[in-house]
């Protein structure tokens, strides 16, 4: 019996008087590509944060590959093969592109607590960093400080760091927001080019991107899960049209 990659079981997230996520259950199989849709405030990012471990659910459970991780720290989930990007670009702004990638690659290595040898003196890690930099090609160069990088390249770097350790589950929170049409296209290409066994969940507002990267779509509204369906079902469903596109009051 194969467990689901991500199994969210009736989770609730209560912030004071606000119930941001209200009893959502979501099962995503291994290798599946799923897009979460919904208007602002629907609870998509909160749900992401519970899967990633940034938030612990008020009630309910989150399981990764069948194992309950509800109380586990984000770093433990990273070691279980989960990686993510953030809605608001989250990098190390005073470090170079190369150093950012370096930190990402080092994160799951046993040498991450090393205190004697210089960080640069680990050939296998240096090699992997060089491979990633060659593969992703940052035109500004690896020695550019991230704070001097263009916004598009910063988003690209986020993605490069998220996939640096070949995660089994990848959470992407609005990966194309603020990107140009060309940049968006290249991000779509990158997501579609991920190995088949990688489970990918994407929060996305751009419907063209959503339909390009996923087969199944889950709609959230006011902290509740409305439905899950294929592109055709989503487009045909009138309730969804009304909720998501705000048509017909």
């Amino acid at each position, binding site marked *: 019996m194969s467990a689901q990659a991500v199994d969210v079981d009736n989770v609730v997230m209560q912030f004071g008087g606000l119930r941001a996520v209200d009893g959502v259950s979501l099962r995503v199989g291994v290798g599946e590509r799923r897009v979460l849709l919904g208007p602002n405030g629907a609870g998509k990012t909160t749900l992401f944060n519970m899967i990633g471990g940034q938030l612990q659910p008020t009630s309910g459970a989150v399981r990764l590959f069948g194992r309950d991780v509800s109380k586990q720290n984000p*770093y433990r989930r990273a*070691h279980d093969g989960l990686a993510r990007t953030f809605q608001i670009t*989250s990098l*190390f702004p005073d470090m170079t592109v190369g150093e950012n990638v370096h930190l990402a690659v*080092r994160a*799951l290595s046993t040498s991450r607590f090393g205190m*004697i040898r*210089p960080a640069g003196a680990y050939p296998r890690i240096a090699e992997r960093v060089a491979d990633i930099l060659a593969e992703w090609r940052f035109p500004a160069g690896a020695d550019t400080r991230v704070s001097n990088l263009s916004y598009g390249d910063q988003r690209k770097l986020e993605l490069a760091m998220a996939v640096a350790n070949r995660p089994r589950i990848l959470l992407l929170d609005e990966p194309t927001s603020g990107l140009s049409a060309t940049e968006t296209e290249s991000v779509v290409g990158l997501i579609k080019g991920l190995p088949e066994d990688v489970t990918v969940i994407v929060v996305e507002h751009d419907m063209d991107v959503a339909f390009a990267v996923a087969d199944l779509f889950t709609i959230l509204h006011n902290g509740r899960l409305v439905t899950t369906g294929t592109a055709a079902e989503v487009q045909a469903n009138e309730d969804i049209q009304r909720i998501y596109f705000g048509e017909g009051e």
Partner: protein
Amino acid sequence: MRPSLVAGAVAVAVFAVAAALGGLLSSYSTGLLIDCLIFAVLALGLNLLLGQTGLPSLGHAAYFGVGAYTAGLVMLHVSDSFWWGAAAAIAASMAVGAVYGLLALRTSGVYFLIITLALGQITFAIAFSWRSLTGGDDGLRGIGRPDLGLPGLNVDTTAGYYLLALAAAAAALLLMRLIVRSPFGEALRGIHQNPDRMAALGYNVWLYKFLAFVISAGFAGWAGVIFVYYKGFISPEAVGIVVSAEVTLMVIVGGAGTLIGPFLGAFLVVFMSHVVSGYTDRWLTVLGLLYICVMLFAPKGIVTLVGDAWRARRSA
């Protein structure tokens, strides 16, 4: 020639000249340099927390004091061996650092600053009131110079002790250089800039902060060892808030997050305190003014200011 080799050669030359100076200067000046070296080691330790990890500890005199008292007590009651005293002192400082770290790391930001300040004051209160152990406000007196077990180095003279202090500071600087350049040090800088991202990448952020706290306390304890054997006494004053605040300023004035900045900051502040004390009693006022000037004109510290100017000239 690689820049790191140049820096290494310069460092060796500086320490060689500094060692030669010990025989030439007056005993008073040599004593002043010993003070500088002691506080340089303390500032170096604090910088691992404040500069590298971004944790503003305002109670670092506590670990300095624990180291100094422990070394003093070992000398008075157990053994006059430098190495036993130093080992016990560093172990005690790190143990206290571990307990305080567990408490302080439940908070962050300004709350972290306040709780480390409070823990520092508790340590001061213990030093002040536990008379049977610490001698209360009289402190511990009559602590002699230690036996290093090394032939040819007589630390009973100020010039001889200066060589010990210089070697102790050089050892601390070399060890800290290893730490900040290691994967561990790199992770601390990542945590300083973006702890949430570090956690999402797979770093146990809490454990890194805790280890940095304990190591930092160990450096402070090492500084306390050099201090107590030099002065021959230790009183609660050395554990107090003024010392903690001065060390924090040394780190910030010199350049938090740089390796050599805290070192230079310590020399600057100690020298200024001696010079200013010759003219006025208002040393703390002058210290405050110095701090304001650095905040206004070189908020990242003197070393960073000079480094940026040098790079700008090179690229121009």
